[in-house]
């Protein structure tokens, strides 16, 4: 019965969140997704949390390179420079 109206269930929506955020939903499904969000505060919260997770992930600072490895790479670079005549 509910399938005949332009709608999704919340359970379906949570599986489409990534496709939605990646702009990969076919246009009809995107419309259903957004129609659902308009009346469903809960799914709006869910989507908002997903966005908050992505912002959080973007703020993770990469672990710095270990000093030994940094020194080793720098030594490699200096060898290469000497060998290749780099710097010329």
């Amino acid at each position: 019965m509910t399938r005949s109206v332009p709608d999704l269930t919340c359970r379906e929506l949570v599986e489409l969140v990534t496709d939605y955020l990646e702009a990969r939903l076919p246009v009809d499904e995107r419309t259903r997704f957004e129609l659902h969000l308009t009346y469903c505060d809960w799914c709006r919260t869910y989507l908002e949390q997903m966005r908050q997770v992505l912002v959080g992930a973007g703020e993770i600072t990469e672990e710095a390179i270990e000093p030994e490895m940094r020194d080793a790479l720098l030594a490699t670079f200096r060898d290469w420079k000497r060998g290749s005549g780099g710097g010329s």
Partner: protein
Amino acid sequence: MSEPVGIAAEDRELAALRAGDEEAFLALVNRHHGAMLRVAGMFVRSRAVAEDVVQEAWVGVLRGLHLFEGRSSLKSWIFSILVNCAKARGLRESRTVPMSSLDPTPEEDAPSVSPDRFREEGDRWAGHWSAPPEPWPDARVESSELVALVGEALETLPPAQRTVMSLRDVDGWESGEVCEHLNISEGNQRVLLHRARSKVRAFVEERLGREGPP
């Protein structure tokens, strides 16, 4: 998130490298180090071997620098060298190269949210939330707590999911770059990303919910 490097900036960077500029080299190393370890880690057994592979890749990059013609981006070229090194090492370790481990497993069909949080079949609102998510308190979202929780959650993920989400959402890679270097299809990439993000959200929700407001 790594800074995107524009074409002109990349030309300057390349010129500096070729001229033997150590600062430029170290900047490049630092920018890609995390992602290089991650990608290498998909092909070899241990962190120590991945570090070896990264080092080997840089040697290859420097050796080939005079041949690099800019048909791809410098980043893309560096990672293709890295992947070649990592694959070769993986084969020597007789470890399966990750084409198989990167295919979504049956576990990937697991729902993003536990089914018991939705109303049951037969209910007039079947499939709608019965235990909906509660908004997270602003103070905790805006603090460094959320960032730390996301980092912790990433560590709990299966390797393929962790790698894809880290490359996309921590390193800021485009989906096409992930597909190219991990040699997976766009669809697989999205399934892995979806599973990863859903689990990370659930992890954060569990922590913020369980610990309650500060």
